[in-house]
């Protein structure tokens, strides 16, 4: 499901692509490094960017597109304001990574690999992030959260929504957040006693 370009986005894309191409030799070997750099700047690889890069390197756009879909690193949808990555590495899978992933899907009403239509959240699965000790692990933006249960997913979402809506619904959110925290406390007590 391609996401509509926002106002001014077209121009940003074109200028970033141009900047990146400027100091690079136009060879096939540089295709992946160029795509990596453009994605770093834009957060994803819009169709338009791939077309332009293909043109510049003399590679058909379908080939660029094929390459971008082949590699996991490249994303064709813009990332959400908040990026949620659920670890589905071996250790995380065995300890309930799927439950965390399902919980986010339920909450956000999107599938893995997608971004909510308001571009607030995107959901991805990743393989081992290197801290299996804390499995199951979820990475929210840059923060790593360990031992994520379904309740913790609710709590995390409330925290994120709380941040997002601070100005307009400060009151409402605070109430919800408190509720969320209470739940967590109860749950943590339960876990400790076990």
């Amino acid at each position: 499901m391609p996401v509509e370009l926002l106002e001014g986005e077209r121009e940003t894309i074109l200028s970033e692509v141009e900047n990146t191409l400027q100091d690079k030799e136009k060879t096939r070997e540089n295709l992946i490094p160029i795509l990596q750099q453009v994605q770093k700047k834009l957060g994803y690889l819009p169709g338009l960017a791939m077309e332009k890069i293909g043109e510049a390197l003399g590679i058909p756009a379908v080939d660029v597109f094929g390459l971008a879909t082949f590699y996991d690193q490249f994303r064709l949808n813009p990332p959400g304001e908040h990026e949620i990555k659920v670890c589905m590495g071996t250790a995380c899978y065995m300890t309930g990574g799927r439950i965390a992933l399902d919980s986010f899907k339920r909450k956000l009403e999107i599938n893995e690999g997608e971004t909510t239509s308001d571009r607030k959240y995107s959901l991805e699965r990743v393989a081992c992030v290197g801290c299996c000790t804390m499995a199951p692990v979820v990475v929210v933006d840059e923060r790593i959260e360990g031992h994520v249960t379904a309740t913790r997913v609710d709590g995390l979402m409330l925290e994120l929504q709380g941040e997002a809506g601070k100005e307009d619904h400060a009151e409402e959110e605070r109430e919800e957040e408190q509720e969320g925290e209470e739940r967590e406390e109860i749950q943590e007590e339960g876990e400790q006693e076990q």
Partner: protein
Amino acid sequence: MSTVSVSESYAELKSAAEEKYNALQDTPVIMVGTASCGKAAGADKVKEAFEEEIRAKGLDARVVEVGCMGHCYAEPLAVVSKPGFPGLCYANLDEGFVKRLVDDFLINDDPCYEYAMVALEPNEVFPTFSDFPRGVYEHKIVLEHCGFIDPGDIDQYIVEGGYEALSRALEMTPEEVMEEINESGLRGRGGAGFPAAEKWEVAREAPGDVKYIIANGDEGDPGAFMDRGILESNPHLVLEGLIISAYAIGAQEAYFYIRAEYPQAVERTREAIRQAKEKGLVGPSILGSDYDLDVKIFQGSGAFICGESSALVKSMEGHMGMPEQRPPRLSISGYRGKPTVVNNVKTLGYVPHILRKGAEWFRGIGNPDSPGTVVFALVGKVNNTGLVEVPMGTTLRQLIYDVGEGIPGDKQFKAVQIGGPSGGCLPESALDIPIDFDSLREAGAMMGSGGLVVLDEDDCMVSVAHFFLDFTQKESCGKCTFCRLGTKHMLDILERITRGEEEDLKVLDHLQELAEDVRAGSLCNLGRTAPNPILTTLRYFRDEYEAHITERCCPARMCPDLITFYIEPPKCSKLCSVCVGSCPTEAIYTREDGLKAIDQEKCVKCNNCYLTCPPEYLAVVKLSPPELLEEKEGKSS
């Protein structure tokens, strides 16, 4: 050539580094582990807290970031070295504890022994690593300095003897270097165990002047982090090994292939190369010799198949990473059509040690056919998770029970998954086989990538097989039919079994046949090894498959479609409503009589109520097959 010899140039570097460190000797130093595992547990905060406290108290002490010392279960970790005391390691740190250490230890000379985990050097007051069972079995070579030196400072690596092997190598002929490695019996640690020197020799002998060597740090196994850990903790070791190997085969350009998704490994490696260039260890006339080498990083884009050496080379050339039919071997025609050697990061990590201590020394460790040590990321249902390094020939039992200190809780060991998606699951009865390339292969598993996951009674073996096949099926590059369609077909069967949709046991024979066909017919080792998780689980845990099929029962109570959550009325306390609050879908309600019950329509099987029901009640149970619910409900109402 310059008038200064290679060894003299090296001696100069070394004495400058020593001078720098001698000057620092009287300053206490705090080393905080900030590899991925440490960061996840909050190491950045701990480091800041140390810095803050030291500044606030006006102390003279250094805070350095180090990599992973392998004890990931105890992160955040820090080592405090204060003159007059042994270096002491403290585990599970937080800001409060940091304050206390600064006040009590740095200011007042009380090392808080009651909170220390281990001492680094032998002393009269506190045990060291070798006083623990883990220390007895562990033998660290490539992990030796990981977590104990600053990966961002080449001088510390040099003080510890770093780059001495390079200086020796450059005074030998490439052939002599190759001979030393050949005699050591070093086998590749990327999975297949191919003798390193054999591959080098082919590339060296191959016609042409332009040759390449690539350090393979792709590490695509979804449950392993050794190579990343090593690059984050001691990048200079791998770099030194890479330069020596490049010299041996006669390459002028060397590459690190590291995933872009591992930014810290990329960053620390890049910094290591920069510093090595500054010291004349990379670039033109290394250490004053007439050998020139340029070292670069290529960032991989995250495809498991790109760990396979021919696919890796394809991706460096700007194409989709698809394996190539061989021959020609890469060592004849690889990157840009030139002779190319691809070696795993760990393989290269052994090279400097072998040149320094000799082939004889290396052969003395491990097994005659698999000399040296082996590095594992030990994870799953085991107490001491982390990076471990043991001699080849150590048994799985020693690794899990002595090094890993066994299974947490009162749970029963079920299996150990070794080698990641290409490996297999071995049962209790296989625990006494020695870990080496050949014994593991005989048992149906594989050394593979070095991921080692311990599974207990709560883990469903069909689901494990499904997990790995799902991974390989998605990662199959699609080039050959057996792999592309075969893995899909097997995955469909496993999917139906875990859902309870297969009713005929014959499907298991079909699965076995398919698995054998894919193994025999695939082009590369991704396809050839993809069936291993299925074949080993069928071989050792067939009863679990059968229970899924004939009884619709998941014995480990893991497969969501085959279980139902149920609250046992006699055990439920009317006064407690923890489960109600824990349910994310409000499926749990209070009955008229005050007992709790689950609305099955709303239940998403998230396991939360099961985890939160207090241990004095344990009223939530998982029933499998789900049909048991009717029986239970019939009885209780």
